[in-house]
């Protein structure tokens, strides 16, 4: 049974690992995505992640289940939203399996697919402005007043 969740809190890598690192598994592959100081040539102060939470939960869980079935592994994924400082983890994928090759492949599949398919967006807050990151594009956050009800 796959584990997948969206959280506001710091991700506890060790607790996530415990979910998939039982004695039937000899291999555990973990991917941590964390806040990097530099992005597209700019210095980053911090990040803010937002999500379409209920849909993101569903999509994360499906990705974890697909990986479990395709590779016969155990998967736990957690994605954090809200504000994150440098070096804090935004996402952690942990895959346990009897042998090592499937743990690497399934872990890579989960993070690659998550980026394509899970409705989560990040805003990079930099000293000289803030930017929505949308795929390959960075769109400067508008200072114009927002119409909440157009």
């Amino acid at each position: 049974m796959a584990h997948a969740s969206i959280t506001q809190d710091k991700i506890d890598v060790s607790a996530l690992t415990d979910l998939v690192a039982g004695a039937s598994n000899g291999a555990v592959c973990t991917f941590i995505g964390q806040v990097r100081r530099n992005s597209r040539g700019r210095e980053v102060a911090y990040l803010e992640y937002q999500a379409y939470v209920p849909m993101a939960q569903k999509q994360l869980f499906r990705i974890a289940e697909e990986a479990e079935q395709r590779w016969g592994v155990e998967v736990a994924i957690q994605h954090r939203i809200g504000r994150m400082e440098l070096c804090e983890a935004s996402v952690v994928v942990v895959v346990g399996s009897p042998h090592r090759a499937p743990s690497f492949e399934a872990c890579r599949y989960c993070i690659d697919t998550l980026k394509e398919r899970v409705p989560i967006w990040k805003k990079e807050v930099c000293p000289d402005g803030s930017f929505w990151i949308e795929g390959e594009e960075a769109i400067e956050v508008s200072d114009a007043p927002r119409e909440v009800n157009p």
Partner: protein
Amino acid sequence: MRVTVLCWGHLTDYFGSEGFELELPEGSQIQNVITLLEQREPKATRLTRSCRYALDEEYAPLDTPLQDGCTVAILPPMSGG
């Protein structure tokens, strides 16, 4: 019928991040929501160029028919991870 519209990323600069309701004629599709939003905010040019759409939390194409009370989400290119 009434439809709830949600959006994220740079679209919240135009349409807010709270979501809002639209009144639409029976038989409307996701495409009609997009057309309406483009009329209200002509600067929101990426709505059809680069977004995907969801109906009630599942991906759906532009020609998906809508029901009263449903939720349409407009999803810019994602950047999770």
